[in-house]
């Protein structure tokens, strides 16, 4: 028996599988709290279905409010995982090991949450299945020309791909977990590991599939947020009808995705005691990426606003004015601070890129990116081309509750995930140990 390799593997399992067993009081309290918040959100949605969409603050002309802001925000967050993980896998970045699974799980949960919002936003959510193309009793087909159908197909493709992409590299770990578990956990892991034996055929097939899927999922991830951008850009509305909206949204999505990944990584590192695996170098590297995306985001924002200002079109200037010096100005300048000024101060120098500073910068970026989504949607709807139709939007307690509950749901999903599955792939750390 090669004792050095075996001891190393035992240590790996002891550290990375420790969170799977037992549950501290803090864990149970956090799970209960997030569950209650999530349940409150569901109750609020039930109230909205019962009373009608009027209990939300959306009304003419601002027919899209918090729900659509959250939709765009969560779909953006979903770019954390699969996209970043795919880039790191394709470039064979050696430091990716503790990052990829944590990131891929964010994608799946954020997509599940994000995909709920168009349904919550519907006046009659119970008939959402009319979007699905099947020969129904009214002999109607969905309108495939509608960006809403584009969203449906893009999100279904991305969600399916992301689940497979999360599941595939988990199979070897699940088989090993089954070997070391008893009771329901053994049955559960054995079922999910679908008969994995560790043969070279299986490893070869897994590596081939992961490499190909990484390439494909990149293309899908870019398309998903481009399609979300086109939901807006296809309308001839002031500041929406823009050719750079697709890349602008994709850049913003990657930006917010990296920020979400850094926040989750920081919390998980502390709570699951993964300090030996999630190292300062991971925060430094991801901090550099975040800084790069902050610069790119700022470039896009300047390009978008500068061309609007030079164009001086009355309809667009109404919206522009409302953003930079009107009722939406406080949000706009907070967004600039959160997305550019603070990340610039905290991430531009190597000395400043500590774990704490990178996490703070990432957290402010999340706030800034939510505000960015808010500022893309609301000002344009509040100041439409017909000046007489100007109106304002204020979210109601129902929308705020549902929004808060989705953040709680994200935490709850992650708490459950970390209790059932190792947050870091054990086999990836063992890769090469036989040499």
């Amino acid at each position: 028996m090669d004792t050095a390799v075996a001891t190393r593997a035992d240590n790996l399992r002891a550290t990375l599988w420790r969170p799977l067993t037992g549950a501290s009081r803090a864990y149970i309290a956090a799970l209960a709290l997030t569950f209650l918040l999530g349940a409150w959100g569901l109750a609020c949605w039930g109230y909205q279905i019962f009373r009608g969409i009027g209990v939300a603050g959306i009304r003419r002309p601002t027919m899209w409010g918090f729900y659509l802001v959250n939709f765009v925000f969560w779909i953006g967050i979903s770019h954390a995982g699969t996209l970043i993980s795919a880039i790191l896998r394709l470039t064979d970045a050696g430091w990716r090991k503790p990052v990829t699974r944590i990131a891929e799980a964010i994608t799946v949960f954020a997509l599940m949450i994000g995909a709920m919002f168009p349904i919550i936003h519907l006046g009659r959510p119970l008939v959402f299945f009319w979007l699905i193309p099947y020969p129904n009793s009214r002999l109607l087909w969905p309108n495939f020309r509608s960006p809403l159908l584009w969203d449906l197909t893009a999100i279904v493709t991305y969600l399916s791909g992301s689940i497979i992409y999360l599941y595939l590299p988990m199979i070897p770990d699940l088989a090993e977990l089954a070997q070391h578990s008893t009771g329901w956990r053994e049955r559960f892991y054995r079922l999910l590991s679908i008969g994995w034996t560790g043969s070279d055929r299986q490893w070869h097939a897994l590596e081939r599939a992961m490499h190909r899927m990484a390439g494909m999922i990149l293309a899908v991830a870019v398309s998903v947020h481009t399609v979300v951008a086109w939901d807006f850009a296809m309308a001839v509305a002031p500041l929406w009808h823009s050719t750079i909206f697709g890349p602008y949204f994709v850049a913003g999505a990657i930006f917010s995705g990296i920020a979400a990944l850094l926040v989750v990584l920081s919390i998980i590192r502390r709570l699951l005691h993964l300090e030996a695996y999630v190292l300062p170098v991971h925060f430094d590297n991801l901090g550099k990426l975040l800084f790069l995306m902050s610069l790119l985001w700022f470039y896009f924002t300047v390009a978008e606003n500068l061309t609007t200002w030079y164009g001086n079109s009355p309809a667009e200037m109404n919206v522009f004015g409302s953003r930079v010096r009107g009722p939406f100005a406080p949000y706009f300048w907070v967004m600039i601070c959160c997305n550019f000024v603070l990340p610039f101060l905290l991430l531009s120098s190597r000395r400043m890129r500590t774990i704490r500073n990178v996490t703070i910068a990432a957290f402010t970026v999340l706030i800034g990116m939510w505000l960015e989504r808010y500022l893309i949607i609301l000002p344009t709807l509040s100041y439409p081309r017909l000046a007489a139709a100007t109106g304002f939007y204020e979210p109601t307690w129902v929308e705020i509750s549902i929004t808060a509950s989705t953040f709680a749901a994200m935490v709850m999903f992650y708490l459950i995930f970390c209790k059932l599955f190792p947050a870091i792939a054990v086999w990836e750390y063992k890769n090469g140990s036989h040499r």
Partner: protein
Amino acid sequence: MVLTADFADAQSVASAIRALKARGYGADEIDVFSTAPIQEAQALLERPSRMSLVAITSAVVFCLSAIAFVHYTQHDYRIVTGGMPIFSWWSTGVIFYEFTMFGSLTATFVMFLLESGLLQRGRAIPAPRLEEGRIYLRLICQAGDAVPAAEYLYEAGAAKVDEIEERP
């Protein structure tokens, strides 16, 4: 007859595979089991894969099916389009693209299941139970070749060679 040889390192396994291949054993008769991927074994065994071909074929099939389906539905129930075409590549290109990618992704997953042998339930030859740090080579051979084959495996560095029973 099935032999299972126990090795401590990847180089010994590579030597064993080379020796077995030199004596006429093919990749179908050799399997290597480990708790982490062994690149040396994968390179020597050169297992053919149709994953890319099937993924591309599936992508094309899904794309063509999506085009046919959308074309049919748009003509089956004509929506007022204000003078725009009933069926337009511009307005439905996204749907075709997503279907293409969906076909490619699902085909890759299915090919992974097929090529890894995970879908073959009730295999006749049992897999060895893996121990950390060990690599197992499984060889399917004729009963009369078992003794010389075991010798090759020992020569290559196997710590132990066992005969295992095939399931009925």
